[in-house]
């Protein structure tokens, strides 16, 4: 049986996409606010607000009746508050994000990552990511969803996956404490391990971050190492960096698949013609399961115009998680709907206010 919350046909037009999204909102709200299947956190909220969610939230716009999701809730609320009653008898996985200092945000989950990554797998080209060919992930494993998701993605394609861990909390701490030598030594340690795997095992696909990919390319030729496709996540993908990765690090021979995603959203798909668009990458969230909007930083209830920069706002609408209008710590250019993804996209995603941190050089 096809479940409307877990899979939806791709809409043909922006109007169809909006209708589909509204229908999906109704189904998701009905799930999370019902006494049988619902989530204690949201049921209690509705009661406190005097809100009849099923009656009053019938479109995406109506989600504004719910408070903006506060990331702090993922630190302070007991997990049980986010367990839908329908899943009460199923043990859950705890995924973490952040946590460089203090308590990380924790999201609990069951099947979402499998649904998201299985859907994403169908967008991958079999020549670049040959079914059965081994993957290597170099990046944050530990308590992150990404580690399970990448292994699932590889397995889903009939492939095994090797892992080299990078602990981003440690790297960030070293950088904050200006221990650059230590940070460098740690990166070398990570790359040493990756190099060993590539030297002794046949690997055809990589998942890593732009920085690690660049550093790996300084040690060896990635196409000569047998890699045919690189799936790359992270927010350090300004057009010049992407061009450099494609033309030089991947030597124009390896398929580059960038993605934007996180523990709360799932993963967004990129527009494949980025090279002919000045290497500017546009992502489209996996609507209707997640919606990314680009909003005014000073007034996040208002969208910026197309082609303008703004802050990324995420809404996740799955059976496991209802996360309305969460403000991400990223910014992006609002992009127009396309033929393949007839809803708004987010371009050139980067950390929020990254541009203001651009180093102003000294006077000498």
């Amino acid at each position, binding site marked *: 049986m096809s479940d409307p919350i877990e899979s939806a046909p791709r809409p043909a037009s922006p109007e169809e996409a909006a209708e589909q999204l509204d229908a999906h909102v109704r189904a998701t709200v009905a799930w999370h606010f019902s006494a049988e299947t619902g989530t204690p956190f949201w049921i209690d909220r509705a009661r406190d607000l005097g809100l009849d969610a099923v009656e009053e939230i019938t479109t995406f716009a109506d989600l504004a009746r719910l408070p903006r999701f506060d990331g702090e809730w993922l630190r302070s609320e007991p997990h049980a508050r986010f367990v839908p009653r329908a899943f009460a008898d199923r043990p859950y996985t705890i995924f973490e994000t952040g946590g460089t200092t203090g308590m990380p945000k924790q999201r609990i989950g069951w099947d979402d990552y499998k649904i998201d990554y299985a859907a994403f797998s169908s967008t991958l080209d079999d020549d670049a990511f040959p079914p059965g060919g081994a993957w290597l992930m170099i990046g944050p494993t530990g308590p992150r969803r990404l580690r399970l998701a990448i292994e699932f993605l590889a397995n889903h394609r009939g492939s095994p996956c090797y892992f080299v861990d990078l602990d981003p909390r440690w790297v960030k701490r070293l950088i904050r404490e200006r221990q650059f030598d230590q940070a460098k030594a740690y990166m070398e340690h990570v790359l040493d391990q990756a190099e060993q795997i590539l030297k002794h095992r046949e690997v055809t696909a990589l998942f890593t971050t732009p920085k690690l990919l660049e550093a790996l390319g*300084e040690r060896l030729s990635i196409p000569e190492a047998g890699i045919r496709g690189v799936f790359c996540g992270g927010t350090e993908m300004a*057009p*010049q960096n992407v*061009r*450099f990765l494609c033309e030089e*690090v991947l030597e124009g021979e390896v398929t580059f698949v960038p993605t934007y995603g996180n523990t709360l959203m799932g993963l967004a798909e990129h527009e494949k013609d980025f090279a002919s668009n000045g*290497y500017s990458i546009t992502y489209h969230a996996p609507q209707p399961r997640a919606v990314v909007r680009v909003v005014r930083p000073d007034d996040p209830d208002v969208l910026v115009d197309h082609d303008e920069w703004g802050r990324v706002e995420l809404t996740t609408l799955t059976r496991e998680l209802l996360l309305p209008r969460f403000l991400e710590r990223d910014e992006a250019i609002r992009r127009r709907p396309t033929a393949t993804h007839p809803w708004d996209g987010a371009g050139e995603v980067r950390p929020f206010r990254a541009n203001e941190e651009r180093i102003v050089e*000294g*006077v*000498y």
Partner: protein
Amino acid sequence: MPSLPHIPVLRHGPAYESLDTVEVRDHRTGTPLAVVSQANAGIVRRDLRKAGARAASLRARPIDELLDLCARAVEPFLEGTLPLNDAGDEQSADQYVRALSATSGMPHALVRANMEKIATVLRDMPAILRGLTRGLDPAVLDTGVGVQNGVPVSYADAADALGVVLPSNSPGVNSIWLPALALKTPVVLKPGREEPWTPLRILRALEAAGLPREAFGFYPTTHDGAAAILEGCGRSQLFGDARTTAPYAGNPAVEIHGPGRSKVVLGPDEADRWETHLDVLVASVARNGGRSCINASTIVVPAHGDAVAEALAARLAAIEPRPADDPEATLCAFANPSVAEWIDGTIAAGLAAGGAVDVTARHRDGDRSVTLDGSTYLRPTVVRCERPDHELANTEFLFPYVAVVEVPSDHVVAAIGPSLVVTAITRDPALRQALIRSPHVERLNLGPIPTSHVDWDQPHEGNLFEFLRVRRAVARDEGW
């Protein structure tokens, strides 16, 4: 309107246009003058992997050929119309002067004086090499072995590339890296954000004279790119303020060119005759618009501090901002007015703390900070400090600024701290010896020579030859 010229990255070969660019603008009008490609750090690192092969190719050229090439670059540098990119945009010498003045605030007359300084280095490269190598036969640079003063010598290469992270304050600083090419070491230059013009013009002039592109890289880039240069080149020169250079302090592969804190010291024997040395004091403080690290920022006297400050203030206060194209202009505008504001505020706060007086204030109408034709200027400032440890007594700003302090002669060396140039106007044996022996004095002028005077056969700010070559012990059997 024609499109802006694009200044590309030069990657030891064809021009490379980055997708990441910044505009350089006329500081008065905000009009963009060029688009400058920004290299990402990965490009710098990737290109440096081939530094060895490029150095080998430059080293295969005989030294005489390289010296001739430098001399032949003088004319195109001073007079030529040279390419800005590979797309056909060019810049004449006049356009260069105007562009640099517009982006950096330096008046035309000073830009031309700096051009002359760079031309001198190119022209007199043989004499400069003699100074750097203490008279070594240039042929030793070809073979790596030879005899000097009857002693066998041999030199190893310390680096396959000299990285240079340049400032925007004065084009003259380019004379410091220039001998590297004659020393057969390719250069990897990161221009200052407001000053891509001069290093590019020098490279284009050398290219016109026959230097192959593989011998030089030109990488306008970000902070990360600068770090990649400093980490990846075997030897580097880093220009910058104390904050920029601090992470590299003590790194033997990085030669730091920070604030100079240059000084004029008047001895007890000459103190009563201070008036006869006033011209030297003025030239030390004000030459090149006070923008160089070899400009004096402190004058140390054993007595007569008030009178010296007063007379110097009267002379310096006469220097007023003039339009950029006025041949008499000697003050530089601040391309970034907030820098002027910061300096002005820092001086005001130092004065408010007590123990220091702005003596120039009495000699001028109005404020230290003035505007003319849309540019911000700081007028010359002489501060009389009661104590040498006053916060305004041993500091350096990007305009003609000097503090006058009284220090007993037997305390001078302890009081002055690290100084790029010290002009010692004294025959007092004890003071002379103390200064000669001090490791804090990088260059010493004995007698009334302005701190801002440069003898090209005297290496200052480090010896580039010793930086780029390592002397090794060598024994040669006869006939081998």
